[in-house]
């Protein structure tokens, strides 16, 4: 009965823009915490893993996918992983809260807004968070000589946004379908944590052995990490880059429909 394309109603853009004031208040309320999460913690990572731990690791380009130092190897993957973490953070508890605890979504759909508008505005906010967090992160890292071309970091930035949005859509859809927040524990432990560790951010996936290497290649995060790294290190294999991009775009599209249908079902009873 619920249809994604109703006969009447607001356009996606109009419905999304009507929530600008709402999201502006959310931003004003949360930006301070966001600064810590978005910039300070990842910087600790860079210093601890990239600089200090990296001091023990030989910067052999043959073993580090073309990076001349462990820091240069880890940075593009860390930022991509960070994008995933931010996206997951913004689409788990906030979504469940709006459905179950604060019920703000119920007040929103009592107006001309529809679930697709709510998803779209939420996604725009996630995109904004990703852009500021990854953007500043990349800027801070620029002086450390971890980028091999002037244009690569811009495309790397784009791929970080893409992988973030892929996770935003997939996880948002998941959050609309679960009834209890304990399901987030499963997501974090069996999803986010293994992906973070084994998708090639901290070590080349070739170290995993042939079977697990292929498993890693199937995860959306690896596509983002790989794309981000190839652009930063100027080691772009264009057909592979195209494949990475296609996979991520497909995940974004699937995530969108998965989220909209999930929210429509959840709010219609």
């Amino acid at each position, binding site marked *: 009965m619920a249809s994604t394309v109703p*006969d009447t109603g*607001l356009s996606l853009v109009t419905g999304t823009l*009507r929530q600008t004031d709402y999201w502006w208040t959310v931003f004003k309320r949360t930006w301070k915490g966001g600064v810590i999460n978005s910039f300070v913690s990842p910087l600790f990572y860079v210093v601890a893993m990239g600089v200090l731990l990296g001091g023990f690791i030989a910067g052999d380009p043959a073993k580090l996918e073309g990076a001349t130092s462990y820091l240069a190897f880890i940075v593009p993957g860390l930022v991509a992983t960070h994008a995933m973490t931010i996206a997951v953070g913004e689409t788990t508890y906030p979504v469940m809260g709006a459905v179950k605890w604060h019920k703000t979504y*119920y007040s929103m759909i*009592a*107006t*001309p807004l*529809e679930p697709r508008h709510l998803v779209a505005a939420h996604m725009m906010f996630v995109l904004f968070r990703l852009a500021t967090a990854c953007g500043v992160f990349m800027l801070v890292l620029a002086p450390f000589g971890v980028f091999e071309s002037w244009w690569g970091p811009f495309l790397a930035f784009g791929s970080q946004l893409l992988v973030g949005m892929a996770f935003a859509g997939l996880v948002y859809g998941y959050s609309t379908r679960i009834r209890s927040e304990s399901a987030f524990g499963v997501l974090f432990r069996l999803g986010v944590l293994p992906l973070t560790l084994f998708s090639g951010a901290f070590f080349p996936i070739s170290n995993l052995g042939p079977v697990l290497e292929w498993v890693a290649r199937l995860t959306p995060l690896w596509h983002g990490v790989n794309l981000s790294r190839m652009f930063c290190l100027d080691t772009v294999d264009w057909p592979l880059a195209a494949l990475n991009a296609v996979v991520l775009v497909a995940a974004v599209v699937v995530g969108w429909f998965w989220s909209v249908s999930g929210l429509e079902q959840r709010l219609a*009873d």
Partner: protein
Amino acid sequence: MPLYRVGAVTESMILARGLRKSFGDFEAVKGIDVDVRRGEAFGFLGPNGAGKSSTMRMIASVSPISGGSLQILGMDPATDGPAIRGRLGVCPQEDTLDNELNVRDNLYIYGRYFGIPKGEVNSRVDELLEFVSLTEKAKAKVEDLSGGMKRRLTIARSLVNRPDLLLLDEPTTGLDPQARHVLWDQLFRLKQAGVTLVITTHYMDEAEQLCDRLVVMDKGLIAAEGSPRQLIEEHSTREVTELRFGITDETNPHELIAEKVEDLGRLEVLPDRILVYSPDGEEVIAKVHERGLDPIGVLVRRSTLEDVFLKLTGRTLVD
């Protein structure tokens, strides 16, 4: 279709025929007919679980109907939901205020969802805060408000788009008597201003105070329809005599006593009292004493919608 003609001529605000709502195997609304016309205050009176909120959510065009037909403001909620919702004010049973926004922002943000320009929303918000007497609380956090204040804020919020039709699901449930009276006063002023109101309640006094016309709803069906006075005249007597007879034991003297007075009028035998429906209460009391019965308490009162409900369903409204 005659449905459409009726809608066009009398400005039907809500027109439901055989309206149903199921949740899985469970049918919460089992085929009801409702007509609400412009400017009236219409009520759904029924106990918890009667299906009032389910009906309200269908009317609010957020919950798809499971059967029958429904038209709101002459439109079909399945296809014109957004257009309908743009002209409705909704005050849901459960609070959906945003606890993370202050009082004023709750109204302002909500107004923006309707596409009302900023300046216009701002002036409406000031006006509405005044109307619900929350101007001093404009900057307060929602969680610091009392139950009555939250309710008033929700009502103010539902008015921000100047709705043609205002839906109030149990507007005063959980409020203390004073807060209820403040709210009734505000709803009464809206009614005077010509806003069409649809109210659900399980308080018969609320229904009597506010509704021009109401339906008595029970177990997903409509048991009766009319103005409060019509319903009382049709289903009850002018006066009711309540008789109380001390502690009852397992031999259940209520039943025995009831046999002795059953010719005095229609009886309802409740656990703690017997109700005698007869137009003249004094006469009933006189006859009870004549028969050598000695109730520890007697009360003669006017019939209410509670009596109507008892007659129609055999149960009390609030249990």
